[in-house]
């Protein structure tokens, strides 16, 4: 057993080594170029950029260091590249394609001209360029979970340690478990996986359970369609999550841990594996943590893609090699879980917050957010907004700030209609409630829930009935089938909704749908079933008129539901001789009439909307009409020699 001062010395050595490496990187006389290579960056060509940068710098005879970093959250601006020249501030360049990369090498690296036209901002106070934190998005954000994401190399443990990483673990090693849990309780942290259960309370239950030696699990089975914050954190800064997991293990007295990541996230898996190896190698994990005699072994488990496995009892079943089906609680896993032992399951973001709370003190955490929901939350904002991506904001931020101030509002001058929060288990919140501050309670009152933090922005062109149908289709497909309400109830609800969107419904459908939704909510075994009706209930509550229009008038007000809309080309706007729409139609449904204007053959039209996009904005001749039966007949017969 090492004495406390030995422990401090051992860690200090590791820290000095890390700081030396970090300084060497920045003081190197060569230019330093970093490229964001999380999945979102790679999808937009960051991998290709790395090749171009390495190849071109050799060709130009330039000495550069090219490093990979994670995701900074600005997905709309990927691929993001930072260039740091000796004696200059690091500059962040957005939307860098191979050509731009070549120019950056020539102008910035070779000639020392910072090429300000392309700069998004400087990464430190600078005379030439405002720093990035003057951008509105950074101004509203408060980064705890994402603090180092996109700024350090996720595959280099020294970077994380140089940023102050693993200090909280060091501190925890000389604290009593009660003391750690006490600090956590004082911070008021609630589970960031969605349900908002007080984290300290869960740890307490696990620590006091009499059923053997505990196990801690990091839940990275992010199954929501349209949410990817857990993946971004694991890909950009895996060590912060592992540190949180190790602290959890100390607090509950576990010597075994699991990191559960979806198999669909190969990059996250690779980086977590590397992080585990490096941390074990430095003695921060493994058989003997920093010579204290404490043991903490971590295994990586790849989940196989079932939405229900985000539920802790289902997740445990899948680690045991079974179908991932939830079981009734209690006993809660914290009391009896994996192989009958007490099992603590915490979400990636919850664990990433733990080191921050211990490092900065619990009062620094309670100062952020609202009294009942302290701290920050990472949201992934997608859909109809100008600047989609990941944002970390204090809880209590209003929806309006999120959509307009942080994500740049709705594109193409369309109007903001609703926000879908919390994925398939959340609900739709209408624009009229946009001044609602977001925390666990207010969202629940509005009929939604925090969920994993996936937010989809919907504009006037989105049909709320269709959105509800989409989410129900997802939960229905992902229902594990164990309990009747979820298995059959969601199926029936989906059929009712499908009939509504097809215009085949009667007013009785609505009543039945509402009754079923309430029953499924009450009668399901786990939260997948209990929250599945949320999208339906919230849309019924806030957008009942849209349902009624579908049922009574066979009309889709948003002009989206395909059975209820038709495409029509206004002859008075259509320009004779213009062929823009014809070429884009996948089924050749557009033909030329005798007056050389175009018309749509309704039987052939598959209503893909490609012609609306193709019609030049100065004509805007193609419109959608609902109900579909109201489409006027073609003005003139088909041209005899239709060249198409």
């Amino acid at each position, binding site marked *: 057993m090492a004495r406390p001062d030995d422990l401090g010395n051992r860690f200090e050595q590791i820290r000095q080594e890390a700081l030396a490496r970090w300084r060497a990187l920045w003081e190197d006389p060569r230019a330093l170029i970093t490229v964001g290579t999380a*999945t979102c960056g790679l999808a937009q060509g960051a991998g290709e950029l790395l090749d171009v940068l390495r190849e071109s710098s050799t060709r130009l005879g330039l000495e550069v260091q090219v490093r990979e970093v994670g995701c900074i959250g600005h997905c709309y601006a990927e691929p993001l590249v930072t260039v740091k020249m000796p004696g200059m501030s690091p500059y962040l360049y957005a939307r860098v394609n191979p050509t731009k990369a070549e120019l950056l090498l020539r102008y910035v690296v070779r000639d020392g001209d910072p090429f300000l036209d392309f700069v998004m901002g400087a990464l430190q106070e600078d005379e030439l360029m405002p720093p990035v934190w003057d951008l509105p998005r950074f101004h509203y954000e408060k980064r705890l979970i994402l603090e180092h994401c996109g700024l350090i190399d996720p595959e280099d443990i020294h970077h994380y340690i140089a940023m102050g990483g693993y200090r909280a673990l060091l501190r925890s090693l000389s604290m009593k478990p009660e003391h750690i849990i006490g600090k956590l309780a004082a911070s008021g942290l609630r589970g960031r996986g969605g349900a908002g259960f007080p984290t300290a309370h869960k740890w307490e239950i696990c620590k006091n359970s009499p059923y053997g030696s505990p196990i801690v699990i990091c839940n990275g089975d992010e199954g929501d*369609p349209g949410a990817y914050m857990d993946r971004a954190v694991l890909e950009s800064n895996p060590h912060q999550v592992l540190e949180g997991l190790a602290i959890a293990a100390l607090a509950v007295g576990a010597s075994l841990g699991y990191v559960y990541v979806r198999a669909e996230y190969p990059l996250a898996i690779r980086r977590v594996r590397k992080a585990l190896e490096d941390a074990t190698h430095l003695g921060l994990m493994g058989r003997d943590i920093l010579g204290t005699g404490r043991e903490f072994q971590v295994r990586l488990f790849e989940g196989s893609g079932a939405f229900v496995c985000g539920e802790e009892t289902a997740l445990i079943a899948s680690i045991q090699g079974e*179908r991932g089906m939830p079981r009734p609680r209690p006993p809660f896993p914290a009391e009896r879980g994996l192989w009958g032992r007490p099992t603590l399951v915490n979400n990636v973001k919850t664990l990433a917050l733990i080191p921050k709370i211990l490092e900065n003190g619990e009062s620094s955490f309670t100062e952020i957010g609202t009294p009942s929901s302290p701290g920050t939350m990472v949201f992934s904002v*997608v859909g109809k907004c100008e600047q989609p991506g990941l944002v970390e904001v204090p809880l209590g931020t209003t929806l309006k700030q999120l959509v307009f101030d942080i994500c740049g509002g709705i594109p193409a001058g369309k109007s903001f209609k609703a926000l879908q929060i919390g994925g398939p288990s959340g609900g739709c919140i209408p624009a009229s409630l946009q001044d609602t501050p977001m925390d666990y309670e207010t969202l629940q009152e509005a009929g939604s829930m925090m969920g994993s933090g*996936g937010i989809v922005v919907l504009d006037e062109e989105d049909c709320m009935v269709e959105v509800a149908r989409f989410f129900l289709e997802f939960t229905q497909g992902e229902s594990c089938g164990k309990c009747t309400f979820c298995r059959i109830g969601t199926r029936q609800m989906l059929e009712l909704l499908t009939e509504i969107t097809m215009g085949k419904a009667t007013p009785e459908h609505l009543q039945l749908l509402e009754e079923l939704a309430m029953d499924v909510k009450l009668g399901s075994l786990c939260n997948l079933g209990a929250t599945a009706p949320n999208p339906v209930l919230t849309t019924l509550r806030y957008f009942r008129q849209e349902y009624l229009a579908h049922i009574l008038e066979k009309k889709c007000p948003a002009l989206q539901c395909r059975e209820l809309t038709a495409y029509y080309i206004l002859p008075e706007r259509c320009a004779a001789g213009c062929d823009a729409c014809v070429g884009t139609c996948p089924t050749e449904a557009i033909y030329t009439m005798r007056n050389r204007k175009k018309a749509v053959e309704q039987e052939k039209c598959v209503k893909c909307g490609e012609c609306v996009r193709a019609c030049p904005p100065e004509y805007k001749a193609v419109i959608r009409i609902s109900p579909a039966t109201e489409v006027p007949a073609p003005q003139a017969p088909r041209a005899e020699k239709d060249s198409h």
Partner: protein
Amino acid sequence: MSEREEELQVLKTVKSFQAEKTNLIPMLQQIQALVGYLPSWGMEEVAKHLSIPVGEVYGVATFYNQFRLTPPGKYQVKVCTGTACHVKRSYVILEEWERRLGIKEGQTTEDRLFGLEKVACVGCCALAPVVVIRHNSTEAFYGNMMTSKVNGLILEVERKEGDGSAR
């Protein structure tokens, strides 16, 4: 990979795991990584090795989205149908692939050149709608998809494969 080779690979994989039920999912994952899908005889081998009924292995394999029981196409087209893609009409893109390839979602073309599937969220929602084409374990992402781009992608593959036959 010839069938003989496939068989060897699978048997080697099965033998490399300890006979514990926790290893069931990792075993299936590794077999699929090697062969591209889960052949029925492979599942029988797994069941034998773990001394559990084949039905249980099959039950696990069909429960999780990751596992497929049919071989994928040489070019596996994955149409993302996550929320962000859906509100940008990814279903239209999927239908266009079905029309052009003459197969339904979940199927593979007769010459096994193309497979088509829908996936829930590949995690680059800022590029919606997204299509991923997987070939030889590399994945190419195509963002902001339109129906008019589909045919071009098919032609590109056919040109690469030296198969000029129009579909």
